[in-house]
Protein backbone atom coordinates (compact mmCIF):
# COMPACT_ATOMS: atom_id res chain seq x y z
CA UNK A 1 0.00 0.00 0.00
CA UNK A 2 2.68 2.43 -0.91
CA UNK A 3 0.39 5.15 -2.24
CA UNK A 4 -1.77 5.21 0.83
CA UNK A 5 1.08 6.73 2.81
CA UNK A 6 0.76 9.90 0.76
CA UNK A 7 -2.87 10.27 1.77
CA UNK A 8 -4.05 12.71 4.40
CA UNK A 9 -5.24 9.91 6.64
CA UNK A 10 -3.62 6.63 5.60
CA UNK A 11 -5.44 4.62 8.27
CA UNK A 12 -8.82 5.84 7.03
CA UNK A 13 -7.84 5.03 3.44
CA UNK A 14 -6.82 1.50 4.42
CA UNK A 15 -10.06 0.97 6.29
CA UNK A 16 -12.10 2.16 3.31
CA UNK A 17 -10.21 -0.07 0.89
CA UNK A 18 -10.80 -3.06 3.21
CA UNK A 19 -14.50 -2.25 3.46
CA UNK A 20 -14.79 -1.81 -0.34
CA UNK A 21 -13.01 -5.13 -0.90
CA UNK A 22 -15.43 -6.89 1.41
CA UNK A 23 -18.48 -5.30 -0.22
CA UNK A 24 -17.32 -6.23 -3.72
CA UNK A 25 -16.73 -9.86 -2.90
CA UNK A 26 -16.36 -11.84 -6.12
CA UNK A 27 -18.54 -9.52 -8.18
CA UNK A 28 -17.54 -6.86 -10.70
CA UNK A 29 -18.78 -3.27 -10.66
CA UNK A 30 -18.24 -0.51 -13.16
CA UNK A 31 -18.63 3.05 -11.88
CA UNK A 32 -18.22 6.24 -13.89
CA UNK A 33 -16.70 9.34 -12.36
CA UNK A 34 -18.37 12.09 -14.34
CA UNK A 35 -15.99 14.88 -13.40
CA UNK A 36 -12.51 15.50 -14.79
CA UNK A 37 -11.33 16.72 -11.40
CA UNK A 38 -12.08 13.27 -10.04
CA UNK A 39 -10.24 11.64 -12.92
CA UNK A 40 -7.21 13.75 -12.03
CA UNK A 41 -7.38 12.68 -8.35
CA UNK A 42 -7.83 9.01 -9.29
CA UNK A 43 -4.71 8.92 -11.47
CA UNK A 44 -2.66 11.29 -9.35
CA UNK A 45 -3.08 9.08 -6.30
CA UNK A 46 -3.15 5.69 -7.98
CA UNK A 47 -6.61 4.95 -6.62
CA UNK A 48 -7.28 2.35 -9.33
CA UNK A 49 -4.43 0.28 -7.96
CA UNK A 50 -5.69 0.39 -4.38
CA UNK A 51 -9.11 -0.89 -5.37
CA UNK A 52 -9.91 -4.57 -5.64
CA UNK A 53 -10.07 -5.96 -9.18
CA UNK A 54 -13.86 -6.07 -8.94
CA UNK A 55 -14.16 -2.28 -9.06
CA UNK A 56 -13.60 -0.66 -12.43
CA UNK A 57 -13.60 3.11 -12.77
CA UNK A 58 -14.68 4.59 -16.09
CA UNK A 59 -13.83 8.19 -16.86
CA UNK A 60 -16.69 10.40 -17.94
CA UNK A 61 -17.28 13.54 -20.02
CA UNK A 62 -17.01 16.13 -17.24
CA UNK A 63 -13.96 17.97 -18.49
CA UNK A 64 -15.18 21.22 -20.05
CA UNK A 65 -12.01 21.67 -22.08
CA UNK A 66 -12.20 18.13 -23.46
CA UNK A 67 -15.74 18.38 -24.80
CA UNK A 68 -15.28 21.51 -26.96
CA UNK A 69 -15.48 20.45 -30.61
CA UNK A 70 -12.89 21.53 -33.17
CA UNK A 71 -15.30 23.80 -35.00
CA UNK A 72 -15.71 25.99 -31.91
CA UNK A 73 -11.93 26.36 -31.60
CA UNK A 74 -11.85 27.44 -35.26
CA UNK A 75 -14.55 30.00 -34.42
CA UNK A 76 -12.53 31.22 -31.43
CA UNK A 77 -9.43 31.64 -33.60
CA UNK A 78 -11.42 33.52 -36.25
CA UNK A 79 -12.63 35.97 -33.59
CA UNK A 80 -9.15 36.26 -32.03
CA UNK A 81 -7.73 37.20 -35.43
CA UNK A 82 -10.21 40.03 -36.04
CA UNK A 83 -8.42 43.40 -36.01
CA UNK A 84 -8.48 45.20 -32.67
CA UNK A 85 -9.53 42.15 -30.65
CA UNK A 86 -7.99 41.13 -27.33
CA UNK A 87 -9.04 37.49 -26.98
CA UNK A 88 -9.03 36.26 -23.38
CA UNK A 89 -9.14 32.64 -22.28
CA UNK A 90 -8.41 30.26 -19.42
CA UNK A 91 -4.93 28.79 -19.85
CA UNK A 92 -6.29 25.28 -20.49
CA UNK A 93 -7.89 26.35 -23.76
CA UNK A 94 -4.71 27.66 -25.41
CA UNK A 95 -3.49 24.31 -26.67
CA UNK A 96 -6.79 22.74 -27.67
CA UNK A 97 -6.43 21.91 -31.36
CA UNK A 98 -8.76 23.33 -33.99
CA UNK A 99 -8.69 22.13 -37.58
CA UNK A 100 -5.72 24.33 -38.47
CA UNK A 101 -3.93 24.80 -35.17
CA UNK A 102 -4.64 26.21 -31.72
CA UNK A 103 -4.91 29.61 -30.04
CA UNK A 104 -1.23 29.52 -29.15
CA UNK A 105 -0.41 29.33 -32.86
CA UNK A 106 -2.83 32.20 -33.55
CA UNK A 107 -0.98 34.21 -30.89
CA UNK A 108 2.34 33.41 -32.56
CA UNK A 109 0.88 34.70 -35.85
CA UNK A 110 0.14 38.01 -34.13
CA UNK A 111 -3.32 37.66 -32.61
CA UNK A 112 -3.60 39.27 -29.17
CA UNK A 113 -4.54 36.21 -27.10
CA UNK A 114 -4.19 36.50 -23.32
CA UNK A 115 -4.62 34.16 -20.36
CA UNK A 116 -6.99 35.22 -17.64
CA UNK A 117 -7.79 33.63 -14.28
CA UNK A 118 -11.30 35.03 -14.11
CA UNK A 119 -13.91 36.52 -16.47
CA UNK A 120 -13.64 39.59 -14.23
CA UNK A 121 -10.01 39.95 -15.31
CA UNK A 122 -11.24 40.00 -18.92
CA UNK A 123 -13.79 42.69 -18.05
CA UNK A 124 -11.06 44.76 -16.37
CA UNK A 125 -8.99 44.53 -19.58
CA UNK A 126 -11.97 45.89 -21.51
CA UNK A 127 -12.27 48.85 -19.14
CA UNK A 128 -8.54 49.52 -19.37
CA UNK A 129 -8.47 49.23 -23.19
CA UNK A 130 -11.50 51.20 -24.38
CA UNK A 131 -10.25 51.32 -27.97
CA UNK A 132 -10.04 47.52 -28.21
CA UNK A 133 -12.67 44.79 -28.37
CA UNK A 134 -12.17 42.35 -25.50
CA UNK A 135 -13.69 38.89 -25.99
CA UNK A 136 -13.89 36.27 -23.23
CA UNK A 137 -13.82 32.62 -24.32
CA UNK A 138 -16.29 31.17 -21.81
CA UNK A 139 -16.08 27.43 -21.17
CA UNK A 140 -17.21 25.29 -18.29
CA UNK A 141 -20.19 23.57 -16.73
CA UNK A 142 -22.55 25.09 -14.15
CA UNK A 143 -19.52 25.52 -11.88
CA UNK A 144 -18.12 28.28 -14.06
CA UNK A 145 -21.15 29.64 -15.92
CA UNK A 146 -22.51 31.68 -12.95
CA UNK A 147 -19.18 33.55 -12.83
CA UNK A 148 -19.57 34.51 -16.48
CA UNK A 149 -23.17 35.52 -15.75
CA UNK A 150 -22.19 37.81 -12.86
CA UNK A 151 -19.49 39.34 -15.06
CA UNK A 152 -22.06 40.06 -17.79
CA UNK A 153 -24.45 41.65 -15.30
CA UNK A 154 -21.63 43.91 -14.16
CA UNK A 155 -20.62 44.73 -17.74
CA UNK A 156 -24.19 45.81 -18.45
CA UNK A 157 -24.46 47.77 -15.22
CA UNK A 158 -21.23 49.63 -15.93
CA UNK A 159 -22.05 49.99 -19.64
CA UNK A 160 -18.82 48.41 -20.85
CA UNK A 161 -19.43 48.46 -24.60
CA UNK A 162 -16.23 46.79 -25.79
CA UNK A 163 -16.71 43.50 -23.91
CA UNK A 164 -18.28 40.35 -25.34
CA UNK A 165 -18.48 36.69 -24.37
CA UNK A 166 -18.06 33.72 -26.71
CA UNK A 167 -20.18 31.28 -24.74
CA UNK A 168 -19.36 27.59 -24.78
CA UNK A 169 -20.88 26.86 -21.41
CA UNK A 170 -22.39 23.40 -21.16
CA UNK A 171 -24.71 21.67 -18.72
CA UNK A 172 -24.05 18.46 -16.83
CA UNK A 173 -27.29 16.52 -17.03
CA UNK A 174 -27.63 16.00 -20.83
CA UNK A 175 -24.27 14.20 -21.27
CA UNK A 176 -25.05 11.92 -18.29
CA UNK A 177 -28.35 11.10 -19.99
CA UNK A 178 -26.57 10.52 -23.31
CA UNK A 179 -24.20 8.09 -21.62
CA UNK A 180 -27.05 6.24 -19.92
CA UNK A 181 -28.75 5.93 -23.32
CA UNK A 182 -25.55 4.72 -24.98
CA UNK A 183 -25.74 1.03 -25.83
CA UNK A 184 -21.97 0.42 -25.65
CA UNK A 185 -21.68 0.96 -21.93
CA UNK A 186 -23.05 -0.90 -18.94
CA UNK A 187 -22.52 1.02 -15.71
CA UNK A 188 -23.45 0.15 -12.14
CA UNK A 189 -23.42 3.69 -10.78
CA UNK A 190 -21.96 7.18 -10.89
CA UNK A 191 -19.60 9.24 -8.81
CA UNK A 192 -21.36 12.59 -9.22
CA UNK A 193 -19.45 15.82 -9.88
CA UNK A 194 -18.41 17.92 -6.87
CA UNK A 195 -18.21 21.58 -7.71
CA UNK A 196 -20.95 21.53 -10.37
CA UNK A 197 -23.20 20.25 -7.60
CA UNK A 198 -22.39 23.19 -5.31
CA UNK A 199 -24.39 25.15 -7.92
CA UNK A 200 -27.04 22.72 -9.21
CA UNK A 201 -27.51 20.73 -6.00
CA UNK A 202 -28.63 17.10 -5.90
CA UNK A 203 -32.11 17.23 -7.40
CA UNK A 204 -31.14 17.30 -11.10
CA UNK A 205 -29.58 13.83 -10.72
CA UNK A 206 -32.69 12.12 -9.41
CA UNK A 207 -33.54 10.77 -12.86
CA UNK A 208 -30.42 8.59 -12.68
CA UNK A 209 -31.84 6.27 -9.98
CA UNK A 210 -35.49 6.94 -10.78
CA UNK A 211 -35.46 6.43 -14.55
CA UNK A 212 -32.32 4.40 -15.12
CA UNK A 213 -32.06 2.53 -11.83
CA UNK A 214 -28.45 3.52 -11.13
CA UNK A 215 -27.13 4.97 -7.85
CA UNK A 216 -25.24 8.28 -7.84
CA UNK A 217 -23.02 9.63 -5.07
CA UNK A 218 -21.70 13.19 -5.30
CA UNK A 219 -18.08 13.29 -4.14
CA UNK A 220 -15.30 15.67 -3.15
CA UNK A 221 -11.88 15.81 -4.77
CA UNK A 222 -9.57 14.14 -2.32
CA UNK A 223 -8.57 10.48 -2.51
CA UNK A 224 -10.54 9.72 0.66
CA UNK A 225 -13.62 11.36 -0.83
CA UNK A 226 -13.45 9.13 -3.91
CA UNK A 227 -12.91 5.99 -1.83
CA UNK A 228 -15.82 6.88 0.42
CA UNK A 229 -18.10 7.55 -2.56
CA UNK A 230 -17.24 4.12 -3.96
CA UNK A 231 -18.04 2.58 -0.59
CA UNK A 232 -21.38 4.44 -0.50
CA UNK A 233 -22.27 3.21 -4.01
CA UNK A 234 -21.49 -0.38 -3.04
CA UNK A 235 -23.47 -0.08 0.20
CA UNK A 236 -26.51 1.10 -1.76
CA UNK A 237 -26.22 -1.84 -4.13
CA UNK A 238 -25.67 -4.39 -1.37
CA UNK A 239 -28.53 -3.01 0.72
CA UNK A 240 -30.87 -2.99 -2.28
CA UNK A 241 -31.21 0.81 -2.29
CA UNK A 242 -30.86 3.09 -5.30
CA UNK A 243 -30.78 6.85 -4.79
CA UNK A 244 -28.80 10.08 -5.02
CA UNK A 245 -26.48 10.51 -2.06
CA UNK A 246 -24.06 13.23 -1.07
CA UNK A 247 -20.57 12.42 0.15
CA UNK A 248 -19.40 16.04 -0.32
CA UNK A 249 -21.72 17.55 2.31
CA UNK A 250 -19.08 20.06 3.38
CA UNK A 251 -19.59 21.94 0.08
CA UNK A 252 -22.73 20.60 -1.64
CA UNK A 253 -26.26 21.25 -0.44
CA UNK A 254 -29.37 19.44 -1.54
CA UNK A 255 -30.75 22.58 -3.21
CA UNK A 256 -27.38 23.78 -4.56
CA UNK A 257 -26.89 27.52 -4.74
CA UNK A 258 -30.29 29.07 -5.57
CA UNK A 259 -28.80 32.54 -6.10
CA UNK A 260 -26.31 31.21 -8.65
CA UNK A 261 -29.09 29.35 -10.49
CA UNK A 262 -31.19 32.52 -10.55
CA UNK A 263 -28.35 34.57 -12.03
CA UNK A 264 -27.69 31.83 -14.59
CA UNK A 265 -31.33 31.87 -15.69
CA UNK A 266 -31.32 35.66 -15.92
CA UNK A 267 -28.35 35.79 -18.29
CA UNK A 268 -28.36 32.49 -20.20
CA UNK A 269 -30.84 30.27 -22.02
CA UNK A 270 -30.47 26.77 -23.41
CA UNK A 271 -29.31 26.34 -26.98
CA UNK A 272 -31.50 23.95 -28.99
CA UNK A 273 -28.40 21.88 -29.87
CA UNK A 274 -24.71 21.89 -29.14
CA UNK A 275 -21.98 19.67 -30.48
CA UNK A 276 -19.83 17.83 -27.94
CA UNK A 277 -16.52 16.45 -28.95
CA UNK A 278 -16.90 12.73 -29.33
CA UNK A 279 -20.52 12.69 -28.18
CA UNK A 280 -22.01 14.48 -31.19
CA UNK A 281 -24.97 16.86 -31.01
CA UNK A 282 -26.88 16.81 -27.71
CA UNK A 283 -30.06 18.83 -27.53
CA UNK A 284 -30.48 21.51 -24.85
CA UNK A 285 -27.01 20.84 -23.49
CA UNK A 286 -25.36 24.26 -23.72
CA UNK A 287 -25.96 27.87 -22.78
CA UNK A 288 -26.19 30.98 -24.95
CA UNK A 289 -26.71 34.58 -23.92
CA UNK A 290 -30.34 35.69 -23.69
CA UNK A 291 -31.47 38.28 -26.23
CA UNK A 292 -31.41 40.93 -23.46
CA UNK A 293 -27.64 40.47 -23.46
CA UNK A 294 -27.26 40.38 -27.25
CA UNK A 295 -24.88 43.35 -27.24
CA UNK A 296 -22.42 41.24 -25.21
CA UNK A 297 -22.67 38.16 -27.43
CA UNK A 298 -19.45 37.64 -29.41
CA UNK A 299 -21.30 35.37 -31.84
CA UNK A 300 -23.48 38.32 -32.82
CA UNK A 301 -20.79 41.02 -32.79
CA UNK A 302 -18.30 39.05 -34.90
CA UNK A 303 -18.62 36.79 -37.88
CA UNK A 304 -17.90 33.27 -36.71
CA UNK A 305 -17.49 30.61 -39.40
CA UNK A 306 -19.64 28.14 -37.43
CA UNK A 307 -18.43 25.25 -39.53
CA UNK A 308 -18.68 21.77 -38.12
CA UNK A 309 -15.34 19.97 -38.25
CA UNK A 310 -15.08 16.22 -37.82
CA UNK A 311 -12.61 14.97 -35.21
CA UNK A 312 -9.33 13.66 -36.60
CA UNK A 313 -9.72 10.03 -37.64
CA UNK A 314 -6.87 8.81 -35.46
CA UNK A 315 -8.32 10.47 -32.36
CA UNK A 316 -10.53 8.36 -30.09
CA UNK A 317 -11.43 11.08 -27.58
CA UNK A 318 -15.10 10.33 -28.11
CA UNK A 319 -14.71 6.76 -26.96
CA UNK A 320 -12.54 7.89 -24.02
CA UNK A 321 -15.12 10.53 -23.04
CA UNK A 322 -17.89 7.96 -23.07
CA UNK A 323 -15.72 5.54 -21.10
CA UNK A 324 -15.83 2.94 -23.86
CA UNK A 325 -12.05 2.67 -24.01
CA UNK A 326 -9.30 3.52 -21.52
CA UNK A 327 -6.84 6.26 -22.50
CA UNK A 328 -4.01 3.83 -23.19
CA UNK A 329 -6.19 1.82 -25.53
CA UNK A 330 -6.35 4.73 -28.01
CA UNK A 331 -4.23 4.11 -31.10
CA UNK A 332 -2.31 7.39 -30.83
CA UNK A 333 -2.00 7.59 -27.01
CA UNK A 334 1.51 8.53 -25.93
CA UNK A 335 2.87 8.25 -29.46
CA UNK A 336 1.42 10.78 -31.89
CA UNK A 337 -0.70 12.31 -29.10
CA UNK A 338 1.09 13.63 -25.99
CA UNK A 339 0.49 16.62 -23.67
CA UNK A 340 3.16 18.53 -25.64
CA UNK A 341 1.53 17.85 -29.03
CA UNK A 342 -2.04 16.82 -28.32
CA UNK A 343 -4.25 15.57 -31.16
CA UNK A 344 -7.31 15.24 -28.98
CA UNK A 345 -8.71 17.39 -26.18
CA UNK A 346 -8.42 14.66 -23.54
CA UNK A 347 -4.65 15.04 -23.75
CA UNK A 348 -4.75 18.84 -23.32
CA UNK A 349 -6.35 19.58 -19.99
CA UNK A 350 -4.79 18.24 -16.79
CA UNK A 351 -8.32 17.02 -16.03
CA UNK A 352 -8.54 15.13 -19.30
CA UNK A 353 -8.37 11.38 -18.80
CA UNK A 354 -5.51 10.96 -21.28
CA UNK A 355 -3.30 13.71 -19.84
CA UNK A 356 -3.98 12.53 -16.27
CA UNK A 357 -3.08 8.98 -17.20
CA UNK A 358 -0.06 10.09 -19.25
CA UNK A 359 1.30 12.19 -16.38
CA UNK A 360 0.59 9.93 -13.44
CA UNK A 361 -1.20 6.73 -14.30
CA UNK A 362 1.64 5.01 -16.11
CA UNK A 363 3.99 5.62 -13.22
CA UNK A 364 1.55 4.34 -10.65
CA UNK A 365 0.83 1.31 -12.75
CA UNK A 366 4.49 0.39 -12.87
CA UNK A 367 4.96 0.96 -9.15
CA UNK A 368 1.79 -0.96 -8.40
CA UNK A 369 3.03 -3.93 -10.37
CA UNK A 370 6.21 -3.68 -8.30
CA UNK A 371 4.29 -3.67 -5.01
CA UNK A 372 1.80 -6.16 -6.42
CA UNK A 373 1.16 -8.68 -3.70
CA UNK A 374 0.89 -6.06 -0.96
CA UNK A 375 -2.20 -4.61 -2.54
Amino acid at each position, binding site marked *: MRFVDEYRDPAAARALVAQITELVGDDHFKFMEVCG*GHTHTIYRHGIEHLLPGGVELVHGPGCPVCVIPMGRIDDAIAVAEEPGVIFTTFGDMMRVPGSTGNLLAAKARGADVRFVYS*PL*DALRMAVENPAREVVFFAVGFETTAPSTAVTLLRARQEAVRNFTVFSNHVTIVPPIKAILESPDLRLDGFIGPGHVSTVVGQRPYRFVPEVYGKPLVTAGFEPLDILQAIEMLLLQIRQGRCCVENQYT*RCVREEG*NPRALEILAEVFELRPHFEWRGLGFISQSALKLRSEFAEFDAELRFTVPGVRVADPKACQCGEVLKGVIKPWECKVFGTACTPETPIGTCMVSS*EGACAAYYNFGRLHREVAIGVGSKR
Partner: protein
Amino acid sequence: MCLGIPGEVVEIVDPVRQLAKVDVAGVRRNINYGLLEDEGVVAGDWVLIHVGFAMSKIDEVEAELAMQGLKMMGQAYEDEVRAVVDSQIG
Protein backbone atom coordinates in the same frame (compact mmCIF):
# COMPACT_ATOMS: atom_id res chain seq x y z
CA MET B 1 -9.86 24.15 -14.32
CA CYS B 2 -12.63 23.10 -11.96
CA LEU B 3 -10.41 23.03 -8.91
CA GLY B 4 -11.53 25.28 -6.12
CA ILE B 5 -9.04 26.85 -3.79
CA PRO B 6 -9.81 27.91 -0.21
CA GLY B 7 -9.22 31.47 0.94
CA GLU B 8 -9.93 33.56 4.03
CA VAL B 9 -11.91 36.76 3.62
CA VAL B 10 -9.73 39.61 4.91
CA GLU B 11 -12.06 42.52 4.21
CA ILE B 12 -15.01 43.60 2.12
CA VAL B 13 -13.50 46.11 -0.32
CA ASP B 14 -16.53 47.07 -2.44
CA PRO B 15 -20.03 46.13 -1.28
CA VAL B 16 -21.63 47.47 -4.48
CA ARG B 17 -19.48 45.37 -6.79
CA GLN B 18 -19.46 42.63 -4.17
CA LEU B 19 -15.68 42.42 -4.00
CA ALA B 20 -13.77 41.04 -1.04
CA LYS B 21 -10.06 40.78 -0.40
CA VAL B 22 -9.08 37.20 0.39
CA ASP B 23 -5.89 35.54 1.53
CA VAL B 24 -5.11 32.53 -0.65
CA ALA B 25 -1.97 30.64 0.34
CA GLY B 26 -0.47 33.87 1.68
CA VAL B 27 -1.38 35.93 -1.40
CA ARG B 28 -4.03 38.67 -1.14
CA ARG B 29 -6.32 39.21 -4.09
CA ASN B 30 -9.83 40.44 -4.75
CA ILE B 31 -12.66 38.03 -5.49
CA ASN B 32 -16.38 38.46 -6.11
CA TYR B 33 -18.83 37.11 -3.51
CA GLY B 34 -22.06 37.83 -5.42
CA LEU B 35 -22.95 34.13 -5.65
CA LEU B 36 -23.05 33.98 -1.84
CA GLU B 37 -25.02 37.16 -1.29
CA ASP B 38 -27.96 35.23 0.20
CA GLU B 39 -25.69 33.91 2.96
CA GLY B 40 -23.70 37.09 3.47
CA VAL B 41 -19.90 37.15 3.59
CA VAL B 42 -17.84 38.85 6.31
CA ALA B 43 -14.17 39.15 7.21
CA GLY B 44 -12.94 35.95 8.81
CA ASP B 45 -15.14 33.67 6.65
CA TRP B 46 -13.46 30.92 4.68
CA VAL B 47 -14.67 30.38 1.12
CA LEU B 48 -13.97 28.02 -1.75
CA ILE B 49 -12.85 30.11 -4.74
CA HIS B 50 -13.26 29.23 -8.41
CA VAL B 51 -12.23 31.57 -11.28
CA GLY B 52 -12.30 34.59 -8.97
CA PHE B 53 -15.68 33.86 -7.39
CA ALA B 54 -16.57 32.55 -3.93
CA MET B 55 -18.53 29.33 -4.61
CA SER B 56 -19.35 28.16 -1.10
CA LYS B 57 -18.51 28.85 2.52
CA ILE B 58 -16.42 26.26 4.30
CA ASP B 59 -15.14 26.07 7.86
CA GLU B 60 -11.56 26.82 8.76
CA VAL B 61 -10.61 23.25 9.59
CA GLU B 62 -12.03 22.09 6.27
CA ALA B 63 -10.16 24.88 4.46
CA GLU B 64 -6.88 23.75 6.00
CA LEU B 65 -7.54 20.12 5.09
CA ALA B 66 -8.62 21.08 1.56
CA MET B 67 -5.39 23.04 1.14
CA GLN B 68 -3.33 20.01 2.18
CA GLY B 69 -5.31 17.93 -0.28
CA LEU B 70 -4.69 20.43 -3.06
CA LYS B 71 -0.96 20.54 -2.34
CA MET B 72 -0.87 16.79 -2.90
CA MET B 73 -2.07 17.50 -6.44
CA GLY B 74 1.30 19.06 -7.30
CA GLN B 75 1.31 20.80 -10.68
CA ALA B 76 -2.44 21.38 -10.80
CA TYR B 77 -2.23 23.14 -7.42
CA GLU B 78 0.75 25.25 -8.48
CA ASP B 79 -1.03 26.28 -11.70
CA GLU B 80 -4.10 27.32 -9.73
CA VAL B 81 -2.08 29.44 -7.28
CA ARG B 82 -0.11 31.06 -10.12
CA ALA B 83 -3.38 31.94 -11.86
CA VAL B 84 -4.72 33.51 -8.66
CA VAL B 85 -1.50 35.51 -8.24
CA ASP B 86 -1.82 36.89 -11.79
CA SER B 87 -5.40 37.96 -11.23
CA GLN B 88 -6.10 41.67 -10.72
CA ILE B 89 -9.84 41.79 -10.23
CA GLY B 90 -10.85 45.32 -9.28
